[in-house]
């Protein structure tokens, strides 16, 4: 039965009844398109964050006072360096700088450019960064969002920061971060660590927090216990905690959407059921003729179900391709704002193309199964029509 002739006939039938299928096809495509865009976008962002997390510190140490994190003394980092299994302990200096004219925050990150690993990572991000030239004068590297904002206020080459002691500090813009890293670097300003200390008001003996590196992942749990026992007012953040928190966040946003989308799918199923339950007299005649030609009920059911499947599958392909184009070529305008959250600075991101088989199968199951579920009973109803009655 299922041979070339069968499919030939099937497609002829589809072509003939295109008016009947077109509305379903369009709605289906739209449904798949929206569903796929959200899932693809959430997945792409997750991948993005995972790749950046890989190069992050394994532990971050903060000092807590009255439930708030305060500046950590530098002496701590020497203490932690002693713990076996820790290869590096880096005091970090960073913080938010309030940009008064627009009531927005920049993230200032101070980097010790004499630290080899840090500057190597930075070299990777920004090719041909001339360290010597950069350190000669007070210079900074800024993200796209910062650049756009400073341009608005005519600070094309420099900006004058105000320190907490009401002093003014002029810093030149050296370079802008590449757009690919915008998810993290959008509102970021990178400068020399001493300069950052001055602008953020952190004293020489203190740092914002301490980053610890541990090359052996199996040691992580042991080190964690040792760290926690060192001080009473310590907070230790593990890399896996951060990864988990991100995963939760994306699951929450994507999940909420999927749960609401279920209602759409259920409604869509009702429409499908209604639509395919209406058997027109011409359809009846057609089935009657097929039956009279010797087709069994089973054959007609197969024909009807395959017909619906073709419509569903075609819509799935088209919707998915459109979504792919929308997310990865157009960078998902409008939709992306749901995931970026309330924007401190407007985001401008180009997404890496990331797609895996499980994602496609998830979308496929989530859409095709409801579709087919809805059309099973109508297909059967149409197929068991009495041929005599139908031909009359």
């Amino acid at each position, binding site marked *: 039965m299922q041979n070339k002739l069968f499919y030939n006939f099937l497609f002829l039938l589809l072509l003939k009844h295109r008016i009947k299928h077109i509305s379903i096809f369009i709605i289906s495509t739209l449904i798949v398109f929206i569903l796929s865009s959200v899932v693809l976008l959430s997945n792409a962002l997750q991948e993005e964050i995972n790749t950046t997390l890989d190069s992050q510190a394994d532990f971050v140490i903060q000092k807590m006072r009255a439930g708030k994190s305060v500046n950590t003394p530098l002496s701590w980092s020497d203490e932690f360096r002693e713990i076996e299994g820790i290869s590096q302990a880096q005091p970090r200096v960073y913080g938010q700088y309030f940009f008064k004219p627009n009531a927005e925050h920049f993230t200032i990150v101070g980097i010790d450019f004499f630290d080899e690993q840090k500057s190597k990572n930075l070299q990777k991000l920004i090719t041909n960064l001339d360290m010597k030239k950069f350190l000669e004068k007070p210079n900074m590297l800024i993200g796209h969002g910062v650049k756009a904002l400073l341009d608005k206020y005519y600070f094309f080459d420099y900006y004058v920061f105000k320190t907490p002691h009401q002093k003014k500090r002029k810093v030149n813009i050296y370079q802008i971060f590449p757009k690919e890293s915008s998810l993290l670097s959008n509102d970021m300003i990178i400068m020399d660590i001493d300069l950052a200390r001055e602008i953020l008001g952190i004293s020489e003996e203190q740092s914002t927090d301490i980053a610890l590196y541990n090359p052996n992942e199996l040691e992580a749990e042991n080190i964690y216990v040792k760290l926690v026992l060192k001080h009473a007012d310590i907070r230790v953040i593990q890399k896996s905690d951060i990864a988990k928190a991100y995963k939760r966040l994306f699951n929450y946003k994507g999940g909420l959407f999927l749960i609401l989308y279920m209602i759409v799918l259920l409604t869509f199923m009702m429409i499908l059921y209604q639509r395919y339950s209406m058997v027109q007299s011409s359809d009846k005649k057609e089935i009657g003729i097929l039956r009279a030609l010797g087709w069994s009920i089973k054959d007609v*059911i197969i024909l009807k179900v395959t017909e619906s499947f073709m419509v569903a599958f075609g819509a799935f392909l088209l919707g998915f391709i459109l979504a792919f184009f929308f997310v990865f070529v157009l960078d998902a305008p409008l939709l992306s704002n749901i995931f970026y959250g309330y924007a401190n600075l407007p985001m401008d991101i180009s997404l890496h193309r990331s797609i895996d088989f499980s994602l496609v199968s998830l979308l496929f199951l989530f859409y095709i199964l409801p579709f087919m579920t809805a059309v099973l009973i109508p297909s059967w109803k149409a197929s*068991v029509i009495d041929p005599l009655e139908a031909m009359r």
Partner: protein
Amino acid sequence: MIFFSNSVIVFIFIEALLLLLLSIAFINVVGILKSWDFSATSTKQYLLEKRSYLVLLIIFFTLGFKIILLPYFIYMIDELNVLVPGAMCAAGVINSNIYGVYLLSLKVRILFLVGLWIILNHYDLQAKDYPFFKKKLWLFILIFFLIIAESILDIFYLINIVTDTPVSCCSAIYGVSGISNPIPFDLHVSELLGLFYLLYGLTLISALYRYALLSLFSNMAFLYSAYYSVVYFFGTYVYELPTHLCPFCMLQAEYFYSGYFIWGTLFLGTFFGISAALLQYITGKEIKKMYRYSLAFNSAFILFCSSYVLLYYIRNGVFL
């Protein structure tokens, strides 16, 4: 909350839809079974026959999807290990509460019955007078109740996955803990392996000469020994680490998803071996194809597993 995980939402939604369809089928099946009489020429029988098309269509459709859903379920569980502290693969997630193990074994059993149903249906439709019609509907009713139990377990399991307290990871669950030997009957690994290959030989003989009863029991025993052999011997070659004992880690991308192939071929091989015997009792006919499939899948399984050991030896010159 694990419920917000995208794949969990999709999974529950699909399970619910399938259950809805199966319930519709179930109501019809009860009606059909009550007054089915193939030899009658009444209008009622005529209507029932029409109705039976719907029932078969729905059952075929849903059970087909059930087959796809088991690998999907395992994949989903594997993916959740990020959210469960301490878990590094599906083993930790499955064992994170008491329902997991029962759920998984129930799912495998249902899949077995589903396969049996589909084959039975195939032979029933081939014959013109539906000789096994009632048998397969009864089998469906059994499957339906099992699926209801499965759905309830699904919910209980997924609700109770812990995300705040650490669970054991696979090495803690399957690892050798001190004196007690985790392999049943206190067997050594070498003894287990001997038994494993011997049992394979037995399935081979039963498949070649088509001994139904022997096929039934040898395949059951083979399944049992193969599970332990893979966990305690072949798995260590897949991971290339003698202390890594886990049936789930091999499902991950690091090991090229080879676990799906290993467990898939084992399931199919023993499934065809066992169902060959069962079908012979149900239909009264000998189905040669079943034995052939059983032979093919069992051999593929054993070749694949052994090749890991062999390749390791060729590359390194020693066994683990």
